């Protein structure tokens, strides 16, 4: 399986390995532009076009530049929201970490203009989740789905999605739902901190090693067909200054071998990227069949199927003392709008 045509995969790999010319045939202009948007690679493509790595006709160049202009305008809108959210949390002494796009654009990407993003992702402690939701609600943000039961989000949820001024804000407690989320120790991610300065605000973010870990989880479990920009994130992070020993210890502690193995295989297969040997070793790390099977529901394109398969696996992974509360919340959500809440459960896994 490949996630995109060869031309687009080559563009995703620009700067990661041996440089080569990428030719976009005029007949492919429209489809390549479409794929570049879908995989959020317009910025990388513009750089490659301007430095001559991409050979294409004038029409392609003009369309690509215009498309990139539009994407950057959207990205700035989201970035301003990231600053607003982080300012709010800093003002209220809420420990947090800005994740993914906003942080990676200013650290990992060769230029912020090469890394677009569509929403704000922030990690908070589960114990702070209700307070953060309340703070954002006071600003006018609305939740996409109601909480299943009081305290569920902070105890069992992967994230809470809210919307403010048309921008989506994902408040994460974990990197992923399901058993691999249960096995995480999210407190680990608050031990170290990097900072990116955006809009006059020092945004706290993960350190490089934790960014790499997160990128691997996102690529491996986020969807069956990961966006190439996310595979590129893994490759760029892997080429930087990360602590392979601490990475390995965390993967052991979080039982994440199957996750990292899938992530590394995807990056190598799709981008043909050269990764450090310490990461390449995960391609062949032994993983029990039972744990490999746990990844299958994460890859379901059917949200209902995904939830149906993830929920029992989550239940089995939880400590015995938490199982009743989880089962009660999922099986019998609070409130009278049962249909809406069941829909919320399904949407929650998307």
């Amino acid at each position, binding site marked *: 399986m490949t996630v995109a045509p060869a031309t687009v995969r080559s563009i995703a790999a620009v700067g990661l390995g041996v440089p080569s010319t990428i030719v976009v045939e005029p007949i492919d202009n429209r489809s390549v532009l479409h794929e570049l948007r879908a995989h959020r690679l317009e910025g990388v493509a*513009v750089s490659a*076009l*301007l430095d001559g790595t991409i050979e294409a006709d004038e029409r392609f160049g003009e369309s690509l*530049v215009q498309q*990139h*202009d539009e994407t*950057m*305008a959207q*990205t*700035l*809108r989201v*970035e*301003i929201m990231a*600053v*607003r959210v982080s300012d709010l949390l800093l003002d209220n002494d809420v420990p947090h970490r800005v994740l993914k796009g906003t942080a990676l654009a200013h650290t990992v990407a060769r*230029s*912020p*203009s090469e890394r677009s993003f569509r929403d704000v992702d922030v990690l908070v402690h589960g114990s702070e989740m209700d307070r953060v939701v309340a703070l954002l609600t006071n600003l006018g943000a609305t939740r996409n789905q109601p909480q299943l039961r009081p305290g569920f989000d902070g105890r069992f949820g992967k994230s809470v999605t809210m919307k403010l001024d048309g921008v989506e804000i994902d408040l994460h407690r974990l990197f992923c739902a399901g058993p691999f989320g249960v096995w995480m120790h999210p407190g680990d991610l608050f031990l170290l901190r990097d900072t990116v300065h*955006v*809009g*006059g605000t020092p945004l706290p973010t993960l350190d490089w090693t934790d960014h790499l870990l997160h990128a691997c989880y996102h690529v491996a479990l986020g969807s069956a067909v990961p966006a190439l920009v996310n595979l590129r994130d893994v490759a760029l992070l892997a080429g930087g200054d990360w602590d392979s020993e601490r990475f390995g210890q965390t993967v052991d502690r979080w039982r994440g071998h199957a996750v990292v193995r899938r992530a590394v295989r995807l990056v190598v297969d799709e981008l043909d990227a050269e990764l450090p040997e310490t990461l390449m070793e995960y391609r062949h790390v032994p993983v029990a069949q039972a744990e490999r099977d746990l990844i299958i529901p994460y890859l379901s394109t059917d949200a209902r199927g995904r939830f149906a398969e993830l929920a029992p696996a989550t239940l089995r992974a939880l400590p015995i003392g938490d199982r009743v509360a989880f089962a009660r919340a999922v099986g019998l959500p609070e409130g009278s709008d049962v249909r809406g809440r069941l829909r919320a459960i399904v949407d929650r896994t998307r």
Partner: protein
Amino acid sequence: MTDTHYRRVRFVERELAHGRRLVQPLTSVAPTQLSGSAPMIWDLLDEHSSVDAVVAMLQQRFSDSPEVIAVGVRSALQSMIQSALVVES
């Protein structure tokens, strides 16, 4: 010349193709595109707040007279003020 000083507001920005720049103040709902010499003037405003100082910096890079450069700088500043990128201080 003038004693007026200018200050950039809090903003986010991205480089665009062909030397253009997209800048959006945190309090604005839409970005402004800077092109031509405007991105250079915008960058100079980070460390130099008066027209005189910006003109002096540009004089080192261009052969135009200070008067000609000042006209361009004032024009760019007016556009930036109208777009709420810059305030007089």
